[in-house]
């Protein structure tokens, strides 16, 4: 059966042996005190050596992971003296930076608010739709059932974020949620429904009501591709393979456009805009503290770098979301997301001995900390009960066969088809064998400070989606990221359109970059440190060591 090595097989036998007794049991949830103790002891965020305080910029003194600090405290890729920004190649009303979910929603709503399609531009680093949005599996929250309400949703979000969220943003999130779902229905998103149209909803980690709406386990893909198609129907122009490498500001400090860089021809392009929506997504590809990530190739925190140089404030970036269930075996899948929906459908996490050690649906940070404690060696205060793979990865079991045993044969393949497909490719049948998981870097909880209209406080600059912070505080719940980008993408798109209608932008310059460079110099930042990162470095060491630039 399967391709698990022999030493792991023995642990699977233990899992099978404890399964009958586990079928009907639900482990107790932790108290808030127990959660806190677990987080302090084992969550990577609580390791002080992982962070440092920023020494430049609007959020001076705030602690952030070293990997991000190295990008914020870094010199521009473009030398402002070598780029002529006075002659724009594109002149638009609204420039949207980022072609994932938030950017696409913002562009659609800017158009809906009266900005002609030709006066909008989406610029994106990879292809339109390449984003974390497209990878989301489990679902989207909205309090639209009779036993639920936006107020209950509000409490869940705040508790999940350990009461560190911006209450105004959370209110916007939960109040807009039902209308987002309705809008998606209008656009033709195929949500999972009962025959009469009632949404099939389940729990996510930290929810008190079953309000997770899904489209099989391709929820993110289904929503993103419908939004992209709608943007295409509206004729909104998109520049692909054109990441923004710097914002442009005028004499009054307003953001008035951006400099893009053609990833394929290495040309720069100047876009002048009356309003800019930053929708560049998150930071998973920084591999904070060496963790693998679920994120897409372009998730390199570029937007944080650009906005920070333009004077935007950042928040909650000391909190990193590790998704409890990243794949830990086989090697080819390490780090990839195993949706929380698997636990929502009653698969239990187990240690090497087949024992339950935590409730399956604690908030993500707590669940992750519990997995790390189970795997950590006793010398480090852990329990040493993880399963070690041939490549030295460690993980805990997720008892996936329980899904079909509880919900009926065929459920797993139907409701979790992407996960099923992913494992079957490697000869592991998750309906018969458990799978190995370990926390993986998943989400940027914090980000650029915004108000409830997506405004960053910097004139002309709006932000939506994973790049902004405050909505989730220091820990996001499952199903609130798809919701976040729809709610704040819409709000930012509408606000940007409103701003563009009355804005009087001055001549575009890179003056703010020059000022930032002065700060960097006085802070003694090493001169070879450059940002934004644009793409992570995965080339082989042998190839890199012999690489010379001759052409």
């Amino acid at each position, binding site marked *: 059966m399967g391709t698990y090595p022999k030493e792991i097989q023995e642990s699977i036998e233990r899992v099978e042996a404890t399964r009958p007794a586990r079928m009907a049991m639900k482990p107790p949830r932790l108290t808030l005190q127990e959660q806190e103790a677990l987080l302090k002891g084992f969550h990577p965020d609580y390791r002080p050596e992982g962070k440092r305080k920023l020494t430049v910029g609007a959020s001076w003194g705030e602690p952030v992971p070293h990997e991000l600090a190295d990008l914020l405290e870094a010199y521009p890729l473009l030398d402002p003296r070598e780029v002529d920004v006075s002659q724009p190649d594109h002149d638009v009303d609204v420039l949207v930076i980022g072609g994932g979910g938030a950017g696409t929603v913002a562009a659609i709503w800017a158009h809906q608010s009266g900005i002609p399609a030709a006066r909008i531009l989406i610029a994106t680093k*990879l*292809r339109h*739709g*390449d*984003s974390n949005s*497209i*990878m989301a599996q489990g679902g989207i929250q*909205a309090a*639209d*059932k009779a*036993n639920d*309400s*936006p*107020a209950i949703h*509000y*409490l869940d979000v*705040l*508790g999940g974020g350990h*009461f560190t969220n911006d209450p*105004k943003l959370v*209110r916007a999130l939960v109040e807009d949620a*039902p*209308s987002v*779902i*309705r809008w998606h*229905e*209008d656009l*033709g*998103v*195929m949500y999972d*429904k009962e025959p*009469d*149209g*009632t*949404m099939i909803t389940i*729990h996510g980690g930290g929810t008190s009501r*079953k309000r997770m709406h899904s489209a*099989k386990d*391709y929820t993110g*893909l*289904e929503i993103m*591709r*419908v939004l992209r198609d709608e943007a*295409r*129907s509206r004729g909104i122009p998109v520049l692909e393979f054109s990441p923004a490498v710097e914002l442009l500001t005028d004499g009054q400090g307003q953001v008035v456009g951006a400099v893009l860089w053609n990833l*394929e021809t290495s040309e720069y392009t100047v876009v002048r805009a009356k309003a800019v929506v930053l929708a560049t997504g998150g930071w998973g590809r920084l591999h904070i503290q060496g963790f693998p990530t679920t994120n*897409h*190739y372009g998730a390199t925190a570029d937007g944080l770098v650009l906005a920070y140089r333009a004077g935007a404030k950042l928040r909650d970036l000391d909190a990193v979301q590790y998704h409890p269930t990243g794949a830990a075996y086989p090697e*080819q899948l390490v780090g*990839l997301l195993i949706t929380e929906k698997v636990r929502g459908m009653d698969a239990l996490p187990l240690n090497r001995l087949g024992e339950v050690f935590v409730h399956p649906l604690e908030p993500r940070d707590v669940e992750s900390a519990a997995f790390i404690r189970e795997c950590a060696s006793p010398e480090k205060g852990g329990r040493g009960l993880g399963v070690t793979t041939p490549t030295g990865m460690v993980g805990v079991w997720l008892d996936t066969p329980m899904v079909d045993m509880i919900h009926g044969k065929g459920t797993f393949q139907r409701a979790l088809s*992407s996960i099923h*497909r*992913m494992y079957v*490719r490697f000869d592991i049948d998750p309906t018969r064998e458990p799978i190995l998981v370990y926390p993986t870097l998943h989400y940027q909880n914090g980000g650029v400070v915004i108000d409830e209209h997506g405004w960053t406080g910097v004139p002309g600059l709006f932000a939506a989606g994973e790049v902004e912070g405050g909505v989730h505080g220091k820990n996001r719940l499952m199903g609130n990221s798809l919701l976040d980008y729809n709610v704040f993408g819409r709000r930012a798109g509408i606000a940007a359109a409103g701003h563009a209608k009355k804005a009087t932008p001055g001549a575009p310059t890179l003056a703010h970059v020059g000022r930032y460079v002065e700060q960097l110099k006085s802070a003694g930042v090493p001169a070879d440190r450059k940002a934004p990162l644009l*793409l992570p*470095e995965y*080339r*082989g060491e042998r*190839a*890199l060591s012999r690489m010379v630039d001759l052409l």
Partner: protein
Amino acid sequence: MNEVTVFIMGKGYHVPEGLTIMKAMEYAGYRLGRGCGCRGGYCGACATVYRLRGDYRLYADLACQTPVQDGMYIAQIPFTPAERPPYQLADLQPRGETLLSLFPELARCVACNTCTKACPQKLEVMDAVQAALRGDIPQVAELTFDCVSCGLCTMRCPAEISHHHVWQLARRLNGAYLTPRALHVQKRVQEVAAGVFKADLDALLSLGKDALVAAYKAREIES
């Protein structure tokens, strides 16, 4: 570490066994821009075709999900030109002939099944073309739900169909018109607009942290 030899666009490289095609290309020194997206099998950016020595078949798969094999000849297909006719969903009827009138090339299908063989998601692509041909929109939507728009079927199709655009339209028609609306969602949208929850939220927003924590702890959890 065992090595295998792969031929990236015909040129041989030694790479460690067990890498995916994507990681093998990076190991060999390629910095991917095109041909790399989510790295998790969802976005369809890394469409790749390959042949194995001594095998006539032309295989098609996603570079991020496929381990290398010794003697593999690899070419990425990072972009698929495909025709998407202009349309507004609101102007369309959810009828069978809608698909055929916007994508008349569907009628050129000779049922060769090459599309199905090219699909990295193992979808029954030809069955979906046939369902589209006879106007069965829900069937098309169901069969193509897991499509990642990688374009491999489109590149292999002798009838020159732009599959993923047909699928996208069929799914939107199905979702918007052929599936009953969720009445509880409409009701809740109206309630929010009417301010039904305003007082509750105002009250929560005015609470101090201790009171909030107490309210959070006191939540009833739906079983």
